């Protein structure tokens, strides 16, 4: 499979009569954009706004972030099973509006939504302060079922992202990245002497606002399966989840999964990267046992020597992470883990809910309980009062002058377990 990502670099957004990309500026026809996402009876109001890096703007509560992409050549379309048909993706040519992002906000669905500050101390923690954001403000109709509310917001974000990129086809790419993944017969024979490895890609699947979709399938209903990394780049994995904002993997971070890109950088030099095993994080013990056993069976079938494992969320999924780790290690497969920590506001408690001695190579994306103070911003897109109820906040988090005092867990993507930030933790 060969996928070319045609990256059109965006460093500025503007409203205009037509949607197009030129000279680093993405001009958006607001009326047309809103017409693409309106018509959903679950939404009472749709609006859009723009936010640039460095501006005194706060966006909250944020549900998801999506990178605009569009399939120009090759089978299928982006976000298969969501906005495109369900054909297998990961081949051909995909247009990427690199540097732009669709951010969905609006009335809160549930506590696990987050904050993006475009400047100030909060901006240092979120990767989405560095993107030019097309913000969709999505307000639901009264008395809507929460599952429907989440679905409506998720679909609006994906539709907008696909629309924006589609309108920019023809814009010259600033950079073309090519990813090629051979079939197993060839992959196994390639790079003799290098260890064959796979990436065990854990996806949150605990129920409402904790679900992730693979080709449109709710992953709590899957058995672990094999996925080509290029499929991920075409939006085969979509986030429908709001575990705490800091360590949910937004759709944007799946599309740009930095673990995959760093595995590719080492591919052919230090490792022979065969691909991804995707698995879920269901709530029952039987599911955890089944999925971990099946994942490690797939790894053994592939004959890999190493498995890099990333978690999504915290607490309950720590049990899945640890089960995956020791089952792999006891099968003779070396592991490295990436997680984040909940060590308390003072950092003095245990960081994980489960552990095993085999987990001796662990990278952490930081302690999500650490408290940060976010000074007021000139403009807030969304509903700042939700700071008092979102995960990481407390009654009184929002001060009268607009200052917000919260745990890092309220900041979107701040302790991303796909390793999307430079944050980490150490012991003093």
């Amino acid at each position, binding site marked *: 499979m060969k996928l070319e990502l045609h990256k059109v670099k965006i460093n500025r957004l503007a409203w205009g009569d037509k949607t197009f990309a030129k000279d680093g500026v993405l001009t958006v026809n607001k009326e047309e954009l809103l017409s693409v996402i309106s018509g959903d009876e679950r939404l009472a109001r749709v609006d859009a706004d723009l936010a640039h890096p460095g501006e005194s703007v706060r966006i909250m509560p944020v549900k998801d972030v999506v990178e605009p992409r569009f399939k120009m050549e090759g089978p299928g379309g982006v976000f298969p099973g969501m906005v495109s048909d369900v054909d297998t993706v990961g081949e051909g040519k995909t247009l990427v509006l690199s540097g732009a992002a669709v951010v969905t906000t609006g009335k809160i669905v549930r*506590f*696990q939504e987050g904050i993006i500050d475009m400047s100030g101390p909060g901006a240092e923690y979120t990767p989405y302060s560095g993107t030019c954001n097309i913000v969709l403000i999505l307000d639901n109709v009264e008395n809507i079922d929460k599952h429907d509310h989440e679905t409506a917001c998720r679909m609006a974000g994906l539709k907008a992202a696909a629309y924006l990129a589609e309108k920019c086809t023809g814009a010259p790419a600033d950079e073309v990245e090519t990813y090629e993944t051979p079939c197993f017969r060839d992959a196994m024979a390639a790079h003799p002497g290098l*260890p064959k*490895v796979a990436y065990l890609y854990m996806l949150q699947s*605990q*129920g*409402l606002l*904790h679900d992730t979709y693979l080709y449109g399938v709710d992953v709590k209903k899957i058995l672990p399966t094999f996925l080509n990394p290029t499929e991920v780049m075409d939006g085969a994995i979509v986030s429908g989840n709001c*575990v*705490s904002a800091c360590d949910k993997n937004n759709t944007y971070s799946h599309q740009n999964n*930095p*673990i995959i890109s*760093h595995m590719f950088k080492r591919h052919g030099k*230090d*490792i022979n990267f065969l691909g991804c095993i995707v698995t879920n994080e269901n*709530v029952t013990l039987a599911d955890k046992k089944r999925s971990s056993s099946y994942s490690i069976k797939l790894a053994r079938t592939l004959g890999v*020597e*190493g498995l*890099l494992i*990333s978690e999504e969320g*915290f*607490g*309950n999924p720590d049990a899945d992470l640890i089960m995956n780790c020791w089952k792999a290690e006891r099968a003779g497969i070396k592991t*490295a*883990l*990436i*997680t984040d920590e*909940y060590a*308390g*506001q003072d950092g*003095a*408690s*245990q*960081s*994980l809910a489960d*552990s095993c001695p085999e987990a001796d*190579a*662990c*990278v*952490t*994306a930081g*302690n999500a309980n650490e408290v940060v103070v976010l000074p007021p911003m000139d403009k807030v897109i969304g509903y700042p009062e939700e700071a008092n109820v979102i*995960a*990481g*906040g*407390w*009654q009184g988090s929002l001060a009268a002058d607009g200052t917000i005092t919260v*745990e890092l*867990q309220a900041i979107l993507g701040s302790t991303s*377990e*796909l*390793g999307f*930030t*430079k*944050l*980490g*933790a*150490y*012991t*003093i």
Partner: protein
Amino acid sequence: MSYRIIHYINQFYAGIGGEEKADVAPEIREGVVGPGMAFKGALGADAEIVATVICGDSYFASNMEKTSAEIIEMMKKYKPDAVIAGPAFNAGRYGTACGALCEAVVKELGIPAVGGMYPENPGVEMYKKSFYIVETPDSAAGMRKAVPAMAGLLLKLLKGEKLGTPAEEGYIERGVRKNKFYDKLAAERVVDMFTAKLKGEPFVTEYPMPQFDRVDPQPAVKNMKNAVIALVTSGGICPVGNPDHIEASSASKFGEYDITGIDDLTCDAFCTAHGGYDATYADEDSDRVLPVDVLREMEREGVFKKLHNKFYSTVGNGTAVASSKRFGAEIASRLIADGVTAVILTST
């Protein structure tokens, strides 16, 4: 202007006497006493020891909380910027006193404190999370090594300078996690670590796996007929509106709610405050998390004597183990006081 330091020592280092004088009550003297002279030199012009507190080890050990409070009161009038305690080397009761006092200083006065102990001093394990303890040799022969290290660390804390790792600064690892920005993305760091492990090259894990407390279950309830049963949950069930504002994650409190006369937790009266699971079904019917309805039936059938008229609830999601321990101890003491004999704990 130099920083104002108070030094804490025991009766032995104050020259009052050994074990026979270990019951002397705390006193505060202006200026330096005993090892304070050495600190004076090490601190230089930046800081001055304005007073020294002296207390007998046995006196302190006999009532640690009260003595700490007493000493803190004595200290206040000297308006200290920081406290130095010891060094206590391997003297167990002296180390414990230094630890208890410094913990109270950090908490009550909000100023830095530095101690010095041998790693096996019991005061280390008890108090290392609360303040900085410089590693010293096991006896007073190590005074010349301990003093400059303690003084140097204290000055850094006072000036708000960035501290290096425990090994670089010479203090005993506190076991406290701090965030920092690395030069590389976490994704790159984990791929680096992964390839190093595969090649058999050295690497350092960023998080050594924790050891957990294992709590042995209580023996089974033999006589259910006489049991008074209470319900306790980390599933966040509370009256609609969450009157105590229990946080959706990282809870700082628990709630106590009366269920006298309530046979069923209906959606107009109860919901969940929890932010870590699909709450739809708990909001529809909170008995799914806290089974009051079923227990009332069993109570009527006489399976057990009584369902306790209060339940206790917090949110387990992202909540620190230290907070959970505190909630657990407080809830248990209230249950015991109310004559509860067995508890059903539900989690989510």
